[in-house]
């Protein structure tokens, strides 16, 4: 056992020594202030996992309150201190902080930075055939701005007035007036500071991803030979570049209203019978600015997951992805439409019903590209030689959530229905399935699929299956009942429902949801063990464990700085040549020239070779 470990370490050390002959990197350069895209990706991933634990933990605390309103939570006092009241209950204002921070952390820190930051960074250079990102330095800054943002947000948990509590959307005037509630004081200021750092981080990352995809592709890697992962990361970054600056504007004006006394979002407000001096502003203005980011943000969260799923499903079905160009067009369609639907979050804000019906129409159109994607996943699976790796299971899980959560989106997109369901648990159920769980599953699929490339070792499949089934069943048990709770009229973000007679019948269902949430959350520790243990002790990964076509599997087991030891491979074909008729193996990687595969070339590929006037002989052999 010990000899194996020593041998492994020697091997890794050898790899590194080989790649840095000219310049030995010290520990800080290599693991902390690294400019290598693979290290930065791992930094994003591990930070994202830590935030996911915090964000998930917060949800368990408020689920305890919702499921067991009379429970004595005195045992949480060592963690929560004075947020547990003298009667052993969660402080009602802290409950609002819990839901706010849960949303903020999950949407921004886990599913934006943790997902895009990890996989865009890791896969873009490896899959397009580049040595690194366009600017390693900006990439490093992107991570460290995210880190600072996280530190500021984390500090806000430990201040006397508690973290921001106005919901993750931080609508004014609640968020704009420090006197409105405890969480609107220093906690809100820290929230805004953290978000400004986060926006800078996202922009630096996104600008880098787009530049890299457009300018650093290897020879032969045309846009229509890009893996769908890259298309998804590319369009996600485009959405980010166009929408995060708008959040910056919204946050900037909110900062001015809070700290300098301007009136962008404030007008005619009375506190204790006294009128505030602010006149002429409008809180609706904030909603417009916020949702201009906020809606594209949900696509920033889901598109990378859809890209990862496309890749994993095609690889493990051993079939070309069904409708490659349709997949790209649907991604493009979603990207464009994501900017013209924001007001469907504002149907009850007094929006003109005429405008409302336009936004409703545009919103429902998004169902078309989304359905194209769902159908293409199903048709790719159809009659494939499916290999159920854990990554594959998580991808199929994503498709399931994307469909079941997407269907309720059609209800909510209709203004007439939404006015009734707005801000109820029905909305909570909808977005937790279609955006939260779906992209979480995409992230898990990505981790299980690319773990061998990230760390050069394999994760345990059995633990992966247990993790998948507990999480998959758990997620449905948590979020499906919330639809009923929402239809019964339960509003979001309420601390307690025990005082309402109408809601008495649902106490058991809420308890059930909380128990399911606790089990699902606990199941994640199986993953954590599997992940961290196998980084160090896992079986060493073969060169191409999943029989995949993309370029990252042509690198050494643990790629060093610069990714490929020799020349960068050139690309001769699209990435989905799985089970090609006539081919000896069921996959042909992108870097294999057509001239080496005469037995499986299709008529148009034979034509293509003829046009270049080379190896006609081989092409003829292909025809016979």
């Amino acid at each position: 056992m010990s000899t194996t470990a020593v041998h492994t370490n020697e091997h890794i050390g050898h790899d590194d020594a080989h790649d840095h002959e000219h310049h030995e990197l010290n520990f800080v350069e290599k693991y902390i202030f690294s400019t290598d895209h693979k290290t930065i990706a791992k930094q994003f991933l591990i930070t994202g996992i830590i935030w996911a634990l915090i964000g998930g933990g917060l949800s368990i605390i408020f689920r305890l309150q919702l499921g067991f309103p009379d429970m004595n939570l005195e045992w949480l006092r060592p963690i929560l201190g004075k947020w547990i009241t003298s009667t052993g209950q969660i402080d009602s204002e802290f409950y609002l902080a819990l839901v706010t921070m849960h949303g903020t952390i999950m949407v921004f820190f886990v599913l934006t930075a943790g997902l895009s930051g990890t996989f865009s960074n890791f896969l873009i250079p490896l899959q397009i055939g580049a040595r690194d990102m366009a600017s390693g330095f900006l990439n490093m800054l992107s991570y460290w701005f995210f880190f600072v943002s996280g530190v500021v947000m984390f500090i806000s948990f430990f201040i006397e007035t508690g973290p921001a509590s106005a919901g993750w959307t931080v609508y004014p005037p609640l968020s704009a007036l420090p006197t409105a509630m405890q969480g609107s004081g220093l906690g809100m200021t820290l929230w805004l500071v953290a978000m400004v750092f986060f926006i800078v981080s996202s922009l630096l990352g996104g600008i880098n991803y787009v530049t890299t995809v457009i300018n650093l592709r290897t020879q032969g890697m045309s846009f229509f030979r890009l893996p769908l992962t890259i298309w998804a990361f590319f369009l996600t970054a485009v959405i980010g570049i166009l929408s995060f600056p708008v959040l910056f504007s919204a946050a900037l004006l909110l900062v001015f209203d809070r700290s300098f006394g301007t009136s962008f979002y404030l007008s005619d407000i009375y506190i204790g019978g006294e009128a505030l001096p602010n006149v002429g502003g409008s809180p609706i203005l904030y909603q417009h600015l916020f949702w201009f980011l906020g809606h594209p943000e949900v696509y920033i969260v889901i598109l990378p997951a859809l890209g990862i799923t496309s890749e994993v499903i095609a690889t493990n079905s051993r079939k070309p992805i069904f409708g490659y160009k349709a997949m790209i067009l649907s991604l493009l369609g979603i990207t464009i439409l994501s900017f013209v639907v924001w007001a469907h979050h504002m149907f009850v804000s007094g929006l003109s019903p005429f405008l409302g019906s336009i936004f409703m129409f545009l919103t429902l159109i998004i169902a078309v590209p989304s359905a194209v994607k769902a159908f293409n996943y199903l048709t790719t699976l159809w009659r494939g030689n499916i290999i159920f790796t854990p990554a594959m299971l998580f991808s199929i899980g994503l498709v399931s959530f994307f469909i079941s959560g997407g269907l309720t989106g059609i209800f909510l997109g209709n203004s007439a229905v939404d006015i009734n369901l707005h801000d109820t648990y029905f909305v909570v159920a909808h977005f937790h399935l279609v955006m939260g769980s779906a992209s979480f599953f995409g992230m898990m699929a990505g981790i299980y699929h690319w773990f061998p490339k990230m760390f050069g070792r394999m994760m345990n499949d059995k633990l992966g299956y247990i993790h998948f089934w507990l999480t998959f069943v758990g997620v449905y048990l948590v979020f499906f009942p919330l639809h009923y709770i929402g239809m019964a009229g339960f509003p979001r973000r309420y601390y307690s429902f025990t005082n309402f007679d109408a809601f008495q019948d649902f106490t058991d269902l809420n308890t059930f949801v909380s128990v399911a949430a606790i089990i699902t959350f606990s199941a994640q520790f199986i993953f954590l063990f599997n992940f961290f243990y196998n980084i160090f002790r896992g079986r060493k990964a073969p060169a191409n464990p999943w029989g995949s076509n993309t370029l990252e599997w042509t690198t050494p087991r643990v790629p060093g700085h610069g990714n490929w030891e020799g020349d960068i491979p050139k690309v001769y074909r699209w990435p989905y040549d799985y089970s090609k008729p006539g081919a000896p193996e069921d996959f042909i990687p992108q870097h294999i020239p057509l001239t080496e595969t005469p037995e499986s070339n299709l008529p148009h590929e034979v034509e293509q070779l003829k046009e270049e006037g080379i190896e006609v002989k081989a092409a003829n052999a292909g025809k016979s």
Partner: protein
Amino acid sequence: METPAQVLSMHPRKFLLWLFIVSIVMIFASLTSAYVVKQSEGAWLIFDLPQAFIYSSIVVLLSSATMQWAYWAAKKDNLSQIKIAVGVTLALSLVFLIVQYLGWGQLVDQQVFFVGNPAGSFIYVLTGLHAFHLAAGIVFLIIVLISTLRFKVHSKSMTQIEMCTTFWHFLSGLWIYLYLFLLLNN
């Protein structure tokens, strides 16, 4: 073996700059549309735009011209002219900032303050944010000036001054847009 086609690509750093410009455009696009939305809701203060903004517009256009002059001089390897042209641009940019500050003074004279009706606050935010980006441009100018003094800017090494010129034209174009926008929506 067939040879795969070379992919289209441009200089990555220039491309980064263009994307950076896109994100700045989105900040100002969102703020000016917020201006329009807020204005259409009424309760809007009406006042005259400061005279200073006309002068600053002229100054910023002049600085754009001298920046272009510096670029052409670099292309022709006329090193002494680059120094003068970049220096003059730097001086003009400082004049611009001073004139903008005087413009704020003229607003205050009209009883239009940062804190008050959003009509006034918006002008301070738009001009202030533009000045902030211009200050970043000034830092860039100083970097170019230092490289020029070290003879690192010439026809064979144009990337830096080309990026600076692009960014500078964008900043003056942005101010002209903001000025016309405020003028037309006043």
